[in-house]
């Protein structure tokens, strides 16, 4: 049965500060869905201002959940330990250094379980101002994510399990997430391929990267 409705979403556009925002958000979503990471759903769309990425609102029409407060982090980490580990591993994979408060979670409703990250505009090609420098950083053992809301709150064993799970994903899927089969806005196919290769490298090195920076992540034993 088909029916129609209106969905609320936050629209994101390419801009001077983040020139490849739409591409980056879409690729991050594709990767998250491929790896089963809890992130908010989204879609490519067109608006009066051109192509946009629509990040769908969580929870309910018109009243999304509030962003996570710093003081709520410990409680949420205890409530969603596996999701937290998945999100940290994913953020390290894509170089999302700006997770901050970009998390929505239900914390007090017994029968509702929601934990989702959103806003990945500062990851992938947008880690640094120039896309090629971002790709170079991804293809290194640099942690990139110097700070994360759930560092020192995540279980070490769960984090390592997620790193292993991500690293075992077939390279083909990671590459395909980056490819549009044509130039997409300002991202040509050469850059798409280069990003795919960098992510494959980083995926394979993820366990090593986490082990090397474990003192910064300071997971729970």
């Amino acid at each position, binding site marked *: 049965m088909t029916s129609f409705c209106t969905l609320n979403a936050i629209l994101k556009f390419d801009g001077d500060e983040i020139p490849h925002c739409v591409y980056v958000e879409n690729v991050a979503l594709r990767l998250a869905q491929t790896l089963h990471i809890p992130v908010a759903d989204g879609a490519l769309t067109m608006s009066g201002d051109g192509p946009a990425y629509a990040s769908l609102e969580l929870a309910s029409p018109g*009243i999304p959940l*509030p962003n996570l407060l710093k*003081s709520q982090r410990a409680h949420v980490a205890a409530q969603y330990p596996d999701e937290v580990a998945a999100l940290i591993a994913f953020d390290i994979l894509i170089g999302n250094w700006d997770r901050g408060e970009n998390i929505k979670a*239900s914390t007090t409703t017994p029968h509702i379980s929601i934990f989702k990250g959103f806003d990945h505009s500062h990851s992938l090609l947008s880690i640094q101002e120039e896309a090629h420098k971002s790709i170079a950083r991804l293809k290194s053992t640099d942690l990139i994510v110097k700070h994360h809301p759930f560092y020192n709150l995540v279980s070490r064993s769960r984090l390592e399990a997620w790193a292993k799970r991500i690293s075992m994903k077939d390279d083909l899927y990671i590459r395909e997430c980056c490819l549009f089969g044509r130039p997409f806005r300002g991202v040509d196919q050469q850059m798409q391929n280069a990003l795919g290769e960098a992510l494959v490298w980083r995926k394979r090195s993820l366990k090593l990267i986490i082990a090397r920076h474990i003192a910064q992540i300071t997971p729970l034993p």
Partner: protein
Amino acid sequence: MILDYRLIQYVANPDQGEGRNIGVIAHGNRKAYYRGLGVGKNGHVDNSYFQAICRGSREYDWVYGEWAAWFQTLAENEGKDPDQFDRLMRELEAQASGILARPGGLLELPDGEDPDRAMDWLYKQAVKTPKRSGPGTFTAKVEEILKTSGISGLPNFHHDVVIEFSPEGSCNREFVRLSYLLESTQRVAFKAVRLSGRQDVCLRQINDASYCFERAVELGFVVPDRCITLVDSIPSARETLLGQLRKTAVIADCSHEDAARDLIMKSLLSETR
């Protein structure tokens, strides 16, 4: 002491921008204070007040409970720092979430005045408590508590269940009817009984519940401490009638403010999950 307060508003239509006051939040002397619609002194949130003013489906009134908890957490933590408080309030506006905290003003308190009392007064001035339309019936109340507790959202939760038994050595079949049944690692059986109605009706329901639970236990369907009778209240005049029922089941009073939490404890769900 000066309280710098903001009006927490629900904006149903962002295009129109008109908001309805649903709470107040303030800070002063490195402390923050919050009062919200349906938020009790113990921090428990009754979402039905917000549901009365929100045109959205009743399915989503739980989101307001999350917001109320968010403001409470903010007031107890980040809100103590004026800069963080201001930053978070500004960010609310930017999020376009339908919940805003608009600048209200400054309230100067006389020396020795209790800021909590001042907040109670401010809340009464700013927020009009809406009339609620439901739940009016006992069944609706029970179902709301089952929903709030999360029990009705669990897999294998059933309404209005008839159990058929074929006792060994007997040609006859027996039937018992349960108001609700949770088929988890150990079954939890529920019967709803109204104690506040006519005595003969009340007695009939109590006898029915006693019989159902006794037979269900004897026939091995459920264990005694997982038989729960949901009652609308416990009038003192009905205490003696409850004596028989207490031998076969645990009594859960749905009129209690913490009924949902109490029901989780009585269902021993921490063991069954």
